[in-house]
């Protein structure tokens, strides 16, 4: 596909935990304005790929390009400063800090310059967070924590938003709300979203394109429509319960 247009391109990346290879020869890209999803079972290496983009752990070989710049060896905080934001696996919000303080941490790149403006946008997207503004992050419900994690990522004014399993452990209604919010963001602001999901059906419905990962290898890729119709994908991830 059009290489030069890609905002994020991951080329032949291999990542190890000690001697165990978690990713082998992964090549994935996301164009500007796209929603791309990576689906796969537990332990396939989806989250590893997401953390590898941030250099935690670092790719042992291969290349990660963002907006034409090689970020493979960049320190994590400098990768974040290129306006890549993530809502990581397990949300990782700051539990003893309030919702507002969590959001402020997200906006620390710009030293809170656009805080008031951006926080309004986040509250429009997730009105629940506004009600909880002075509440400690750790006391929020799972869904609210997920909203906070996404909201915190958005406060950094990202060009690329990485979402790791935003649907994990949440009620179907809340998943629907969060997915709608992502779609809305993408449509109104043209934000590029890279979504890692186990909930294959929901993710493929949301995304423009998708990748399927098995044991650290990307086995299939294509337009979401095609993947949804693909018998192999259906058998492995979709049949036996729609989420």
């Amino acid at each position, binding site marked *: 596909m059009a290489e030069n247009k890609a905002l994020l391109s991951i080329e032949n990346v291999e990542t190890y935990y000690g001697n165990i290879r978690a990713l082998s020869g992964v090549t994935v890209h996301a164009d500007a304005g796209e929603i791309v999803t990576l689906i796969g079972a537990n332990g396939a290496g989806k989250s590893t790929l997401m953390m590898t983009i941030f250099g*935690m752990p670092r790719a042992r070989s291969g290349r990660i390009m963002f907006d034409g710049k090689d970020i493979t060896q960049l320190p994590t*905080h400098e990768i974040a400063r290129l306006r890549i934001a993530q809502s990581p696996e397990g949300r990782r919000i700051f*539990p003893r800090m309030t919702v507002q303080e969590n959001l402020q941490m997200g906006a620390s790149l710009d030293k809170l310059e656009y805080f008031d403006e951006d926080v309004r946008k986040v509250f429009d997207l997730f009105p629940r967070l506004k009600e909880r503004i002075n509440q400690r*992050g750790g006391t929020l419900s799972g869904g609210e924590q997920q909203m906070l994690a996404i909201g915190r990522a958005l406060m950094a004014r990202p060009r690329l938003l990485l979402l790791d399993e935003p649907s994990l452990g949440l009620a179907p209604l809340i998943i629907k709300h969060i997915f709608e919010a992502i779609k809305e963001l993408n449509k109104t602001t043209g934000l590029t979203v890279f979504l890692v999901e186990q909930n294959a059906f929901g993710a493929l419905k949301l995304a423009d394109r998708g990748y399927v990962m098995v044991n650290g290898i990307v086995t299939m890729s294509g337009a979401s429509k095609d993947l949804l119709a693909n018998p192999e994908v259906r058998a492995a991830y979709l049949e036996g319960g729609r989420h």
Partner: protein
Amino acid sequence: MADVQTSNPESNFAKAVKEGLVAAALALGLFLLIVGFRTDQNIRNELVLNQRWGLLAIFVLVAGIGRFLLTAYVTPWNAARALSKRTVAAKEAKEQSAFRKSFPKIGLALLFVYPFLVIGTLALYNGSMMGGLQGSLKYVDNFGIQILIYVMLAWGLNIVIGLAGLLDLGYVAFYAVGAYSYALLSSHFGLSFWLLLPMAGIFAALWGIVLGFPVLRLRGDYLAIVTLAFGEIIRLVLINWTVVTKGTFGISGIAKATLFGIPFTPGPGGFANLLGLPNSGVYYKIFLYYLILLLALLTAWVTIRLRRMPIGRAWEALREDEIACRSLGINTTTTKLTAFATGAMFGGFAGSFFAARQGFVSPESFVFLESAIILAIVVLGGMGSLVGIAIAAAVMIGGTELLRELEFLKHIFGNDFTPELYRMLLFGLAMIVVMVWKPRGFVGNREPSAFLHKRKLVSSEFTKEGHG
């Protein structure tokens, strides 16, 4: 102790009796050889075995009756209290916060008038002004200054542990760096206290960075071990580098601090002489008291300011989740180093003050126990809480000082009893009691540094480490 069964008082009583007997039997087994027998040398240098059945009986009875009372009364009482507390929690929280809001102000005002309060009281008691001045020495020095030094040290360590979440067991090293910086530079170059105070802070901060670099990638227990080793290294260097530090002899005759160039010496030109006051050593002590009070308040003020600034916010976020921090674009390297350096700097200030106050420094003052006590104060007070830490310092340091005065116990336990020996035992017991009673410290609440409409304390029940 966790099970709460108060429905049947009779079975509870039986249970208490049973547990009391078990505890007594355990105590008997445990203390039979340790307490029941004692080997002494007689006049011919022979080892004789003395039997101390009376003492053993006291130990066993204390264990048995204590356990009985605990099971029969204390545990049900606690459970009932917890139950009633939950129902009136909202009301109580309101009352508490009103008290809490004014507590720091009242405490501060008391601290500022404390020396004069002591002098006034003692003057009335002794019937003469001079008696009041001399009598106040002990209270201003042993209690006031001593406690405030630890308040300042604990507030400094609080930046590293309470805010940034970096467990530092070698904090006393920075205290030592500050003290020796002042001691050496003032005795070799004759520099004044006011010049050396900031310099000592800077030196300590540099050492903080030196410690910070190798431990950047460590956390928790690993970090604790390395910082512990660092503290010991500094102490051993002070002992063995005799050319510079004079080793265990220490450095004596360190110059005293002056009040803007006015020395606190008797005779013409001295403080007492200039103001036409009678000569007394107490002015210097009072001066030192206010000096350490101001230094401690500086520490608190800086901590409060920093918490509202990006760097303080970053420290707290670092304590909560380092990975999330990094992926938000925060440079965790500089964040950690600034935490170490800032904490160390206040340790350095306190150290140079210590040297000026004592007039003598030796490596003996900077042993691991000091680090442990400072850490204990931070933990007991509630990590991150300035007021809680101040209370903990007053209780722990003031308490151990008070224990020096327990001469009256000799009348009860006989002349062989030396209350000083039990100071550390009581210190430890007090710590256990506090940790059982308030596991998050005296003030376990974390006050948000940013709020929208009104302040709302984050209850200590929720302020556990880790993910929500």
